[in-house]
């Protein structure tokens, strides 16, 4: 089974190729550059390197969010188009779950963090045990302060991962104290191998049905709903 994995949901570009249990190639670039220009050439180069042709692929795995709206869309568009036109299965997995799964050999609660600006984060809570990843709290867009209050009520230590968690460390430590541990610098981004392994254990979906998970409404829509609610209240 030959698998291609793609994650462009943050500014890190992760692509990987595996054959059976063997990870043949991984490429991660952690620079703020244009995904649209770079993803397809990265996939082509990686597959050339391991002498694999598009027609050899048996499955595509993609991180479908949350994260940068445009970044998520580029990865999902490429993945669903490839899977559809090559007539192979597609599995979408959470980019946060894959980041959590990139923390190897850890037992316990892992909290992956993408920054979402203005004190907000995209995050979720996962339990790692024996290399398995279990969702404890679903992915969401939340204020980091509210999220820490929710985590501390669990009464268990939590390991924060992801390079964008680093900028929130101070706030997290203030609220959670010794219940929080930080591995943001040693688990900075999603490893393609983690994405592949999550994708292989999850069900496949119809490429047409795979859509990004943005974790929040488009700004215009949120404002429109808010205005509508106000209108409804004032007419009561």
């Amino acid at each position, binding site marked *: 089974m030959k698998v291609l994995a793609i994650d462009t949901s943050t500014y890190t570009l992760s692509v990987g190729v595996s054959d059976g249990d063997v990870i043949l190639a991984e490429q991660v670039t952690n620079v703020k550059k244009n995904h649209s220009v770079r*993803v397809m050439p990265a996939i082509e180069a990686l597959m050339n390197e391991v002498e694999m042709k598009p027609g050899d692929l048996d499955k595509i795995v993609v991180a479908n969010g949350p994260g940068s709206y445009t970044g998520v869309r580029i990865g999902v568009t490429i993945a669903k188009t490839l899977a559809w036109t090559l007539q192979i299965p597609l599995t979408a997995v959470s980019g946060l779950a894959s980041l959590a799964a990139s923390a190897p050999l850890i037992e316990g609660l892992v909290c992956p963090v993408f920054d979402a600006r203005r004190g907000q984060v995209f995050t979720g809570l996962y339990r790692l045990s024996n290399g398995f990843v279990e969702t404890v709290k679903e992915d969401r867009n939340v204020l980091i302060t509210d999220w820490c209050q929710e985590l501390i009520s669990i009464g268990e230590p939590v390991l924060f991962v992801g390079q964008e968690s680093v900028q929130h460390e101070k706030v997290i430590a203030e609220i959670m104290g010794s219940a929080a541990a930080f591995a943001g610098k040693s688990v900075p981004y999603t490893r393609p191998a983690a994405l592949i392994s999550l994708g292989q254990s999850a069900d496949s979906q119809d490429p047409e049905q795979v859509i990004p998970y943005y974790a929040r409404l*488009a700004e215009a829509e949120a404002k429109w709903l808010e205005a509508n609610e106000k209108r409804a209240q004032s007419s009561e």
Partner: protein
Amino acid sequence: MEKDTFVFGIETSCDETAAAIIKNGTEIVANVVSSQIESHKRFGGVVPEIASRHHVEQIISVFEETLEQAELTFQHIDAIAVTKGPGLVGALLVGVNAGKAIAFAHGIPLVGVHHIAGHIYANRLVQEMSFPLLSLVVSGGHTELVYMKEHGSFEVIGETRDDAAGEAYDKVARTLNLPYPGGPYIDRLAAEGNDTYALPRIRLEEGSFDFSFSGLKSAVINTVHNAEQRGEEIIPENLAASFQASVVDVLTEKTVRAAKEYGVKQVLLAGGVAANKGLRSSLEHAFSEIDQVELLIPPLSLCTDNAAMIAAAGTVLFEQGKRDGLDMNGHPGLDLEQF
């Protein structure tokens, strides 16, 4: 016998998700357009982020329907033509990356197409082009006179210095409390009224083929404002007719003058505003008196955004040897003369 050329076109620059297959650059084999207009109406205009979200949701079913309509597979396709600009960047990126994925998956050549080149080439799906020709491009974002001495060559001889004609239509429609998108409503209303408000014809300096519509738009707003202050009632039909007459007069006059000056064989109308009845009949009337010039106006379905026009333009570029790589990007401000 020469082999037929099939080009698969993709268009996602604004609020239509579209794909098409064109045979030999002139014949529509399949043409599928999924419009998002309903979901943007409540915002009074196209919201870029929402447009991008719709594109990624719709694109595979649009592709699938296109292949089904054509009863073809990508094995039959000689090139993928995709709009690379201008347009909304997030929206463009969906089509561009889907196009690159198909090209990579099947080893098919990829050609990036300028959206306006596409609008012009919509005409070739109706009748063969004869050069030199002039195209009047009028849409929500564009008002341009484009001179073509041969296939694939575009020279912009006139363009708007402020608002596009379509933008002016939308703003005037808002002033008259008409729903979005305003163009068709004004066109309909204008047909019921008369040109009574004596609005200005903005022709700019002598000999210029450029356009300006912001002064006209302000004149409409002032007319409404002044009437309100005097407690007079505006007759919307007449105001719409007066506005439309001004736009159409200027567009027609400059197009006729450019056609004569450049000695063209054909004049092609292109872009969404080409659906406007007032503009169509004015141009038809003007060019019926000029024997040497043939006027082409595509059917309504090919005036608004579609991928058939992108595949038609893409076929010519493909045959001229133009190619884009897997590093092709979306270009929101792509230049027609440079792309």
